[in-house]
């Protein structure tokens, strides 16, 4: 069952159509929601949260209708907004406990959970500090903590690594991976940073102009059209390349002893072709695997 979905969804701001007939299913696990600026990602999130009423079509989150059951949806999801946001005049533990109470938790439960979640998010030592004194990295973590406190089944993370230094970014990505893989919480990551999505998500949904462009697992999307293989030799070998070309292969790129080859569709067993060429030329194959594109390539191809 998809954790969130849209069916022929049309959302308008006045006369401007932000989403024009989107149909998409967000599966369980961690999913990256990608798209250029103005693609409709934020509008889709607003609609799922129940803040915008669809002009037509439907949107569902965890089995609830987003148009009519916004409160039930917000009870079961956590939102980590993109912008810096906190409730002023509070220390971290008071703030997180308060957001838990807003989600309906009794005060003593919320306070206990606040301590646990802050510890989990790496803010245990700083939990009694005023949030106004926090660094950017700590503020990102506290946004995550307040989204987690009430035990959501789905987390919406909007640009979770915004403004983080490399160490902070790695730590945040580790947390997101742990949340989705070890804690079993479904995660939707909206990010412009494709390496972040690549590192944290199993599935990717790309939208453009309010329409679905492509979707699938990261692995599927990265696979190249046609038959491409990455070959690593013990040392560079012109003879091996020539032997592969004789077998109908085209060299896409070479880098030191590595090369990417595009094989003709007529080749039934690419491994057999590579190993026979290596045998013929005396080259030693160190690694052989299907060639993959970067997610950035996939994204650029999808949105252009």
């Amino acid at each position: 069952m998809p954790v969130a979905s849209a069916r022929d969804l049309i959302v308008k701001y006045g006369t401007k159509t932000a989403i024009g007939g989107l149909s998409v299913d967000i599966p369980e696990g961690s999913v990256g929601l990608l798209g250029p600026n103005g693609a409709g990602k934020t509008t889709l999130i607003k609609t799922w949260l129940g803040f915008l009423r669809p002009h037509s079509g439907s949107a569902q989150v965890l089995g609830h209708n987003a148009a009519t059951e916004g409160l039930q949806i917000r009870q079961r999801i956590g939102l980590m907004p993109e912008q810096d946001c906190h409730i002023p005049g509070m220390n971290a533990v008071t703030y997180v406990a308060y957001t838990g109470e807003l989600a309906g938790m009794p005060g003593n439960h919320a306070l206990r959970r606040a301590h646990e979640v802050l510890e989990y998010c790496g803010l245990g030592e700083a939990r009694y500090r005023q949030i106004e004194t926090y660094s950017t990295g700590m503020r990102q973590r506290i946004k995550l903590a307040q989204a987690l406190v009430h035990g959501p089944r789905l987390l919406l993370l909007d640009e979770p690594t915004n403004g983080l230094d490399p160490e902070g970014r790695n730590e945040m990505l580790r947390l997101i991976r742990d949340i989705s893989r070890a804690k079993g919480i479904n995660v939707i990551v909206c990010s412009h940073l494709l390496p972040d999505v690549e590192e944290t998500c199993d599935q990717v949904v790309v939208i453009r102009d309010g329409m679905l462009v492509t979707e699938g697992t990261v692995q599927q999307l990265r696979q190249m059209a046609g038959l491409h293989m990455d070959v690593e030799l013990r040392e560079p070998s012109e003879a091996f390349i020539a032997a592969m070309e004789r077998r109908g292969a085209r060299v896409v790129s070479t880098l030191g002893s590595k090369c990417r080859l595009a094989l003709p569709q007529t080749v039934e067993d690419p491994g057999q072709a590579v190993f026979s060429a290596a045998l013929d030329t005396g080259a030693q194959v160190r690694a052989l695997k299907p060639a993959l594109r970067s997610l950035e390539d996939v994204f650029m191809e999808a949105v252009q």
Partner: protein
Amino acid sequence: MTDPGSAPGGAPPVVSPIADLTYRHYDGPLNSRAFRFWIVALVGIRQVMRKWWFWLLVLGSVWPYGLIGFFFFLESRLGDDLPRTFLNAAPGAKYSTAFFQAFDWQMFWLMVIGLSVGAASIAADNKTNALQVYLAKPITKTDYLLGKWMGVFSVVFAAALLPALLLYTYCLLSFWSNGFLRQEPWLIFKILGASASAAAGFASLFIGVSAWSRSPMMAGAFSAGMYFASGIVATILWAALYGRSSASTDITNAVLVQHASIGGVLKALVWNIYDVTVRMPTPGRMFMPTDVRAPSLGFVLVAYLAIVIGGLVAARLRIRAVEVVTG
């Protein structure tokens, strides 16, 4: 088979006092959504109660009742030797008049308390984008607004009511034998009504302004400016229209114009609630004190409702969930 959570020997399970610090799903109880607004209100109240200056303002709002109580004490000791004051009001309205007088002196302090709590309440949230946090939780815009309003209302209401209740208790205990309850049996309800209506007026006004600002300081300055400017305009209008009137002029309209301001409307409503005659300087009579009745309740009520509803509607319009996520 032994339950892994139970202690050896069949004793009750041992519950560790230290929280398990590993994140896990929350499957504990959830409160009903009906009073979620009260959580928002409570936080506002707790935050302001931690400020030292708030207690100074509270002291300011207490002294008028202390002074009146002191007058009552003197009167009980000195009797007829005490000069004629408001304590010698019309029969059956002595205490109402005294409580109204105390409220009149207290009102400035209530305004400052309401301003310091209310002007910052939503503006501070706007400044730190806290609305994103609130509205992404299972609460409605109405819950949020009601919570913020209730936070300001409760503080101002308590500041208005508690000193009045203290004085009431003193009067009840000291003047029981003088027929305190018999003379004015409805006084306690008048005190409640007066405190509530002033608190509601201030809360609505300041919340309405606060919602439209991203700076608590600006919201405070604008609210105070609006409050005092309307008072100054009403006073100028009053002096211009009725300053040269003769002694025979009906002063009903003059009193109405005099109270055509935010503070004036709130005071006039409380005046109507206490339903007393007040001696005040009147134009056309060389500003000699004259017995004056409260302005017409109809006009006052319309103006009061405009302030309360206007403030709430203004705030409601500004609290928009669609700004929750941007980018």
